[in-house]
């Protein structure tokens, strides 16, 4: 990332001036609000800033320059799948026929979107080997909640509501236990085996009549395929429990492994990972969920259905009494789903399989380039991501993974995922994805190797990094101890507006 030209900006409040702006909205009649009772009216106007359009545009263009983005450079972020976001998808989602459609419009005026959603469900079901898909959840974490709530409904319907435990490996993403808690379950964490995989024996020992579900990520959060997944799934079902797959790492196995075929009962997709929908600085995403026969009756409502005449419609509220209900308003994040649909159709079966082939090849290549300089705790063929560690570097020089990550910023890269999964000491989880060229991969490896050398020759350069970003390391302790979460006019005690 170029470091000249990005200038810190005043806040939008500091840029406003009384009397600026206007020219956007016609004036209403003077008596427009007379019929609203005075006690319901706003007495004190909201102190929103007044700006002319030029200042608004400059503010947001200049702020955007302070951001790193996929469109500016490489994100080797393990578990995030920061692949290129195709521009066709932005165009498609903005087609007025899609963008202007009201979610409560009658089915007959929404046939285009309903058809697209129905086809997307079928495509995701095919990719995952599942029987049916709901597109309703607004994000992967909400998809997880949907899956766990369906599992709970299943057990209750069978009179087994006493099952109150969910098992997760210690390498799991934090959303897994958080989701289990939201659904009223106790999380039992199972330590991983020495080779990084799920410890089948430990799982077997923990499985029992109180187990409602296990939540597994496959490939694991270490980027390793669970070769004994078949055994695990058998054990889970033998105990009367169901198996949930966290689909965050689907980019590794498209066309190679279908979770539904292998025996998973339910999984979620992260379309903002595997299917290229943009991260948007933290959202929006979408978290469709696929199910097998067992959980089919419990899918959220409304489902998208196809009639005998080939037309499409939404299920009526209450039509399917076994449904767990709704997880959010309306049918789902359709705007995001349109992008995922376009991505899948652009690739087709052969393209999707190639995505995984290239993602896995790139990860193994990068791991090969870094081995010898960084510790590679699990030194066998990985899938789309791998874990490297600076544990030895820390022991020898005191420099930590956090410092190395921050120093990468000076080399023009976004840091990889650090300190996740929790089970690796001084870990870096690196996922190149399939859309980075070999040149980029080599340059990134060279940078990491150069930084490793710096830890012995000029460690302060690393521990004091970044030096060239718009801001340096932040005082996060004060930010948490004395939170300032809302702009107030300056009282004189605060850090002043940048020049």
């Amino acid at each position, binding site marked *: 990332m170029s470091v000249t030209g990005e200038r810190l900006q005043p806040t939008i409040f500091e840029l406003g001036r009384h009397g600026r702006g206007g020219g956007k909205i016609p004036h209403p009649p003077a008596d427009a609000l007379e019929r609203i009772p005075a006690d319901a009216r706003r007495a004190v106007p909201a102190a929103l800033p007044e700006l002319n359009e030029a200042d608004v545009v400059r503010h947001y263009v200049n702020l955007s320059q302070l951001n790193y983005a996929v469109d500016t450079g490489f994100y080797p972020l393990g578990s995030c799948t920061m692949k290129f976001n195709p521009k066709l998808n932005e165009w498609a989602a903005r087609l007025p026929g899609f963008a202007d459609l009201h979610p409560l419009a009658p089915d007959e005026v929404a046939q285009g979107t309903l058809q697209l959603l129905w086809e997307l469900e079928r495509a995701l079901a095919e990719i995952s080997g599942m029987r049916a898909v709901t597109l309703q959840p607004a994000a992967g974490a909400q998809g997880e909640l949907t899956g766990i709530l369906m599992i709970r409904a299943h057990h209750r319907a069978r009179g087994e509501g006493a099952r109150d435990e969910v098992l997760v490996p210690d390498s799991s993403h934090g*959303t897994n236990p958080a989701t289990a808690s939201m659904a009223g379950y106790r999380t039992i964490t199972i330590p991983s085996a020495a080779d990084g995989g799920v410890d089948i024996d430990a799982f077997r020992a923990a499985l029992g009549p109180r187990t409602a579900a296990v939540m597994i990520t496959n490939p694991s959060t270490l980027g390793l395929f669970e070769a004994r997944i078949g055994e695990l799934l058998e054990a889970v079902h033998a105990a009367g429990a169901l198996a949930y797959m966290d689909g965050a790492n689907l980019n590794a196995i498209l066309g190679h492994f279908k979770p539904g075929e292998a025996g998973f009962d339910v999984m979620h997709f992260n379309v903002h990972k595997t299917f290229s929908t943009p991260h948007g*600085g933290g959202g929006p995403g979408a978290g469709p969920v696929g199910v097998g026969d067992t959980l089919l009756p419990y899918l959220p409502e409304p489902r998208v259905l196809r009639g005998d005449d080939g037309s499409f419609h939404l299920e009526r509220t209450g039509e399917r009494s076994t449904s767990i209900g709704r997880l959010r308003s309306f049918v789902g994040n359709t705007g995001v789903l349109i992008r995922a649909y376009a991505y899948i159709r652009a690739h087709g079966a052969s393209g999707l399989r190639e995505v995984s082939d290239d993602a896995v090849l790139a990860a193994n290549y990068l791991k090969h380039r870094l081995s010898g300089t960084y510790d590679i705790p699990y030194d066998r063929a990985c899938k789309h991501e791998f874990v490297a560690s600076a544990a030895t570097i820390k022991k020898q020089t005191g420099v930590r993974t956090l410092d190395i990550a921050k120093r990468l910023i000076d080399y023009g890269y976004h840091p990889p995922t650090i300190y996740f999964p929790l089970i690796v000491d001084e870990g870096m989880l690196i996922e190149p994805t399939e859309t980075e060229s070999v040149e980029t991969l080599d340059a990134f490896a060279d940078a990491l190797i150069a930084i490793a050398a710096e830890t012995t020759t000029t460690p302060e350069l690393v521990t004091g990094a970044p030096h060239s970003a718009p801001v340096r390391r932040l005082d996060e302790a004060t930010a948490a101890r004395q939170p300032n979460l809302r702009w107030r006019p300056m009282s004189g005690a605060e850090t002043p507006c940048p020049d």
Partner: protein
Amino acid sequence: MPYGPHTADDRERMLGALGLTSVDQLFEDIPVALRASRLDLPDPEPELELAARLTGLAARNRTDLASFLGAGVYRHWSPPAVDQLLLRGEWYTAYTPYQPEVSQGTLQSIYEYESLLAELVDLDVVSASHYDGATATAEAALMTCRATRRERVLISRGVHPHYRETTRTYFEGGLDLEEIPLVADGEAAGTTDLAALERMLAEPGRPVAGVIAAQPDFCGLLEPMPEIGRLAHAAGALFVAVVEPVSLAVLAPPGAYGADIAAGEGQPLGIAPQYGGPYLGILAATDALVRQIPGRLVGLTSDLDGKRAFVMTMRAREQDIRRDKAASNICTNQALLALAAAIYLATVGPHGLRDVAALGAARAAELEAALAAVGVDRLHRGPYLNEFVIRVPAARAVHRRLLDAGVLAGLVLADAEPDDPSLAEGLLVCATEVTTSDEIARFARAIGAILGAPVAEVAR
């Protein structure tokens, strides 16, 4: 593969470095018995063909109707500056700002969004956003239980049915959600029944954590929010106001009438309807409740050199750190939509926002008069801002015939609220600043013509 850079040479080079001859060797750890069956998907579509097909699909939706449909999602005009700024790759292809040094754009924009919404709702803290109005409401309900350590929440039937259903899903098992009935007749018909609320709050041995009501309510009516808040607080419960952000330019905000928490849908702030999302869940609270707020919060701080900077803060509340003890599993916020809302507010400004709200009110009054002139009256009598219910015999059939005449006459309430017989003949209609007098005239003419002739109920 359409977007990947690797040529055959590139792949050969990488495989060579690994001492391999085929990428299949990297998948040998998948047991043969578990390998996937063939992926049965349509062939890859080059962009030119895909674009043509998508255009065709979009064209199968009808968006040329004179629409009076609101019910939680509203047609507003968004200045083109909003979307043009949103199309910058630095905004929409950026990751979550976990590395604040290279994410100051996103972080400052979220802090500004939080601050702008705080002004609008007149509460101390606004979160970096939730998925939508429904989940924000559900999370607000859960907050009241955590904060008071009580297990019972009362939610008015005046709150959007999707929001009530979503809250019910989040409450399943362990917590108690009850609906407060609406007044059946008279001037206050269609608003929260205060006497019933008082009785529910007084039930011995069943303390209430929170009371939730919407302003305006689902039928567009103005609710007695200060009174509802007083009753809630007298019983030791927290008060949650579900609000519509454009209306807050002209209606009293939650902070003014004692709400502890505000939830709502930010879609009206420059975000297109998009058939369901992505939208913007607004969640705000008083300072006292800040630690109970789920999801992300962005705060102001400084860097090593003393420069002002922004950072996600109080992160230990979130799922990646708290794990099974997190208040919520939420791992995202609607960052790009929060940005859109902030740009919209900055572009239209406070006067523009007020004009949007006032114009909607004016057009709605025009609509009411035009419909009354052809014999179609409101179902309720209380004041409304820009949305109301009209009473139409055989509402569903009439709605269908109006559709044929090019008018989307709002929402058939018999479908949305099947359990409320008083709404069986109701159509929920709204007007905004984009509703034209022509459209209003077309609606009135069409419905007048239809009701002039006998109508048969259409079988479902």
